[in-house]
């Protein structure tokens, strides 16, 4: 048991290192150097460049800077943002909670909605209507659905405030916007899984024991249908992180998405690296949870 946990942690650390290194190399290969990024569209003279290089220790070879970065990161020091002139840990620290709230709320909405849709729309034409609606949810860019939801529920009806992180009311629309495409994909996967499970011999056995169709569906088939859905958890993380960038922009919410967008656009290397490492860590954690979830859902896997 301890061995298994240790192996998992070690693998996680390797993934984090690989992600940080890949991001570092990508930023190094990108056109324009750090001095260019710091200068932006401002005044540009050799004297200004020299001062920037001195301030940020940029005259050292790339490999030394990279090793220095790794060493400091290992000690928990993520450096200072070139653009915001503040410690990266502080910038990320104050922005992470709103993003986590948004992601969790969106995930809950997406999963619950998908379960409800998949289980309740079993009849032929209801199912066709639902399928079409789900396809629309998946293919609508969150930018557009966000603006539409805002226009109706905030600007016209005045039920929810538009801006910022102001309690649950302000979280509702962003979370729904981000949760809808998730519900669209998950419900289709779940429905496929249910169809397949209901054709299995065990479903026939259950029915023959006199169980109602609903009991067969919820108690037996759903459990089977969950396995492919859980496999999508990794994808879900990606959607949540990527979607947050757009949602936060549209709704004027604080969060990592806006920080990331600004950092990438301006070549703010320390912030980009920290966000990449954080996202990689989230992936590692969620994939571990997914592996545990398999064991919980499917008792057969526990024995092997």
């Amino acid at each position, binding site marked *: 048991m301890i061995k298994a946990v240790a192996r998992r942690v070690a693998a996680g650390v390797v993934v984090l290192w690989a992600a940080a290194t890949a991001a570092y190399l990508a930023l190094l290969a990108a056109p324009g*150097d750090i001095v*260019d990024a710091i200068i932006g569209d401002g005044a540009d003279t050799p004297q200004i460049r020299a001062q920037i290089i001195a301030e940020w220790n940029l005259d050292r070879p790339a490999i030394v800077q990279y090793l220095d970065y790794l060493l400091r990161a290992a000690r928990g020091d993520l450096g200072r943002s070139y653009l915001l002139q503040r410690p990266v840990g502080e910038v990320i620290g104050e922005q992470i909670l709103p993003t986590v709230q948004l992601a969790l709320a969106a995930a809950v909405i997406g999963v619950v909605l998908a379960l409800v849709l998949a289980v309740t729309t079993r009849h032929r034409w209801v199912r066709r209507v639902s399928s079409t609606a789900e396809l629309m949810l998946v293919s609508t860019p969150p930018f557009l659905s966000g603006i539409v939801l*805002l226009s109706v529920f905030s600007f016209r009806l005045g039920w929810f405030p538009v801006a910022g992180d102001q309690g649950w009311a302000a979280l509702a629309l962003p979370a729904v916007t981000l949760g809808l495409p998730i519900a669209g994909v998950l419900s289709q996967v779940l429905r496929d899984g249910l169809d397949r499970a209901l054709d299995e011999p065990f479903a026939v056995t259950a029915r023959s024991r006199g169980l109602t169709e609903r009991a067969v569906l919820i108690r037996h088939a759903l459990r089977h249908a969950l396995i492919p859905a859980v496999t999508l958890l990794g994808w879900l993380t990606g959607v949540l992180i990527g979607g947050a960038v757009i949602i936060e*922009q549209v709704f004027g919410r604080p969060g990592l998405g806006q920080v990331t967008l600004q950092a990438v656009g301006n070549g703010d290397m320390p912030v980009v690296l920290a966000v990449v490492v954080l996202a990689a860590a989230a992936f590692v954690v969620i994939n571990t949870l997914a592996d545990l979830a398999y064991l919980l859902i499917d008792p057969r896997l526990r024995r092997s």
Partner: protein
Amino acid sequence: MRRIRPAVVITVLALALTSACSPASSGAAGVPDAGQPVSGGSLTWAVETEPITFNPHQYAQAKARLLVWNTFEALLTHDGQGGYVPWLATGYDVSSDGKTYTFKLRTDVTFSDGEKFDAAAVKANIDQFLVEGYNPGVLAVQLRYLDKVEVVDPATVAFHLKQPDVLLLDFLSTPQGAQISPKSLKEAKNLKAGGPELAGTGPFVLDRYTAGQEVHFVRNPRYNWAPSTAKHQGPAYLDDITYRFLKESSVRVGALTSGQVQIVEGVPATDEALITANPQLTLSRGLNSGSAYSYYLNSANAPFDDLRVRQAFREAVDVDAVLDGVYRGTATRAWSVIGPTSPFYDKSLEKTYGGDAAEANRLLDEAGWTARDAEGFRVKDGRRLTVRLVQSAPFVRDRRDVLAQAVQAAVKQSAGIDLNVALVDQGTATQALADGAYEVFDNSRADTDAGAALGLLLHSGGAINRIGVKDPALDTAIEQGQASGDQAKRTEAYRQVQKFVITDQALVLPLYAPADQLAASVKVGGAGFEPTAGVPGSAYDIWLGK
């Protein structure tokens, strides 16, 4: 002729009188307005841009200016004609050699952390720029002629220069010249980022900043030193004010029409009708100071090393038609590199060039670009007539990317010129600039003194001279404009500069004068634009009608 009945005359007169008596800010009849200024209330203001820093010394975004003046103040400010008005200074003297500027300071001013504002504070602020890495840009440009700052007595401070530089006055009236409490300069943990830990002398105090969401200011009750350009004296009217960062224009406008915010900054042309059609809302526009948004033609590279090709490029664009298509009649066309609100603007340049396709084609034929390739572009010696414009995405505003596409279509259609537009990240853009891999450079600057922009963009040693212009006569004219304190001499110097780059050398294609828009509920009174700068002003004079 039919007799007009007296009743009609009386009605018309009465209507005329009532409308004449109502305050200028009111809208249509029957619509409530903000009434007389009253104290109290909280305002929410949606702005487009979140500042990357709240330290005024680090200021680099024209759109952040309206926030700076809530908390910080400068020694001087501008009147509506580009002249200087005392603010934290009561006046200044210039020595006859133009190398010493002596300021008398107000003695009744305190920073919001209780520190006294005096000559030592001014010196501490300027000396801060000498700290390595604090703001190398300001040190290399605005303060390059500064020798030292001397505290003569607590109420007198002298700036000694290495050579005459009238732009020092402009610097001391900009956010970068604003005064921060010396205590904050010493103790702030994140000095360059600014925020609640930096104290200023302004009418509001920044007490809360939530990155990505909003910044909040409360009234400074002790404030009593507004400049004469302000519309009132004493503390600000509003109790507190929240600026929300809403980057999407449609969301800003929606938040305003639904009453979630009372005033918004930045209304694109496509959304203006939503505001003007609503009697509960008002819309106002201010033209920015500084340089016009222009295409600078890189004379260091072929084919723009040929004057005729530069002239042809300018003739090939019908700027009015292009602006109308992109901005639906809301943009103000520029005719010079200097914006039309500047006292140095040369009005005689208007309608002297541009929009003549036949002339463009004649010039290109004369320059030898006679053949055409399969796509209809002009060719010479097997090379297509291609010019490249590289735009850095983080700095594109006012749909300048769309404008570039419209110009691209115009020059292709009217003269067979291939304008290659690339919208790229900042790193790629800077790389292209460093490699000289561009023929068109686009830029506008919001300097309150347009002379500062000319020195940076057109002097052979200018820090943003991207077009390889090196002309001794041009340099001399720019230097004269910067050295003299005499407005007539400066105007003449800058007239020569404009004549050289617009008329003689066709180095610049001016497009439009950048503007800012304010849309507000009719309940909001006193909102307006800063004199000369033309950007939205601070919240000092704003009140909320009951």
